[in-house]
């Protein structure tokens, strides 16, 4: 095993453990902090994949904003913050079975595909992914429409969410 394989396995194990704790911890604040751990792990995976920009954006957007929003929301709905009876619903066995089935299905699907054991070519050292991304996001041949639509989507979300959350007296 090479060094990067060992690093990957450690990061992946930590991430999956954190993700598992997110869905099983009774204390919701703890679950939110575990989610942050899992998101950090995914950021590390992005860094291993040479996607520096996405790794940092993952930390800035998810850890810096989305996780804080979760924590705020948990504290605003305080009554359900700590363990109160069962955290899982009646059908949890069925849910566990279904998600295990999804994993098994994906696993066997992947095993049947021959492109799966492919290894990556060396990363071209003169390639600046951020500049390429910047070019693609505003180029009319590429992603300018999704780029602008994302802006509209976020503004729509802002307007809707503020309206819903605002305390109309």
């Amino acid at each position, binding site marked *: 095993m090479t060094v990067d394989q060992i690093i990957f396995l450690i990061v992946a194990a930590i991430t999956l453990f954190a993700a598992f704790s997110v869905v099983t911890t009774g204390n919701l604040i703890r679950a939110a902090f575990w989610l942050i751990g899992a998101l950090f792990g995914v950021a590390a995976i992005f860094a291993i994949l040479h996607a*520096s920009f996405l790794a*940092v954006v993952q*930390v*800035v957007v998810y850890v*810096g*904003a989305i996780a804080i929003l979760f*924590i705020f929301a948990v504290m605003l709905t305080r009554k359900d913050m700590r363990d109160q009876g069962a955290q899982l619903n009646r059908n949890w066995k069925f849910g566990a079975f279904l998600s295990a089935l999804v994993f098994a299905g994906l696993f066997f699907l992947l095993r049947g595909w021959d492109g799966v054991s492919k290894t990556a070519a060396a990363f071209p050292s003169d390639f600046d992914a*951020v500049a390429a991304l910047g070019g693609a996001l505003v180029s009319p041949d590429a992603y300018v429409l999704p780029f602008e639509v994302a802006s509209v989507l976020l503004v729509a979300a802002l307007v809707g969410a503020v309206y819903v959350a605002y305390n109309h007296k």
Partner: protein
Amino acid sequence: MDFHKDPLQIAANWLFGILAGWGVADLWAQVLIGFLGIFLLIALLMVVDILLVWVERKVVSRFQSRIGPNRVGPFGLIQPFADIIKLLIKEDTTPEGADRALYNLAPVLSMMSVLILWAVVPLAPTILGVDLNIGVLYIIGAGAIGTLSIIMAGWSSNNKYSLLGAFREVAVMLSFEIPMLTMMLIPTIFAGSMGIAAITQAQDVWFFFLAPLAAIIFLIAAIAELGRAPFDMGEAESELISGYNIEYSGMKFGMFYAGELLHAFTFGSFWAILFFGGYRFFGLEKVSAFLAIAVLLFKAFIGYWIIMWVKYTLLRIRIDHMLIFNWKFLTPVAFALLMVTAFMNALLAASPTWLYVSGMFLSNVLVAWISLELARFAAHKEREKTENALTADARR
């Protein structure tokens, strides 16, 4: 290779030779040397941090017409070391009902979020931790960890005041992050790169002269991000006692305190790097790497001194005023400035340097003037409304 130009590379090569002589594999030798270098840098930062405690106490006492620490050692220089010994042997209490794991993790994360910022700081042309091509965003990402540590400390202490302080502090930090991010876009536009080293290299003309307004907004946002006065609503001593770190004592409190000071110094150096050329000073950096470090530290201390000056001059601002100041004034101005800068940058792309610089400077001044006039107009209207309401009340 000249020792004055690139001391670290020479030291690394020397160490590498020794390790290779011992039969250590190349990869591990490199990792070990990297580890040692990082350890050295962080240890140095801790020493600077101890010095900062002394500087802060001395400066605040001068601002308040006192003398400050002057008993322990010459000019009280040994005072911070005495403080450390006191913190080390002080009993440390954990409040009842605290979430112990998070309670102990928070101070460590708080300090870490500051230390890791220095991974991307170019100390000299050749002395640079990591040249990430997304350095500017890395700063914000590290700040996110700091925000997290505050909310962690506030929640896990099992105390109303600490939670209230954490909430306020986080609300302020989040709000002011937007103008800060926006102002970081402006050096990015000028340099055509997000790498901190590239931004430093691109400053043949200091970016302060291209975007003075951006530098000022960045400083305001940075002070708010640090949670220092006048934006220290999160730890308002007279109302919340000490905010999110109220239940902490001993070395854990020391970590929060030292982290805050080092954070201020770090933002002083980022201000210097993004807008005042970092280690560059009329070609001095080309003479010797040590001179470059001295230049950067000097500029960083000036930035730090300005942050202190603001802290000890201005009064605390109420939280609603603070948030409204950010969302209704600073953020729109920042975005307007960004649009104007992007537009002027494209318009003046082919023009000579003097025209480019003066055009940028004038457009900044124009944006500042228009926004201040608008703010004055709005303030007049607001004042009139309040006064009318008051006189109506009095008549009744």
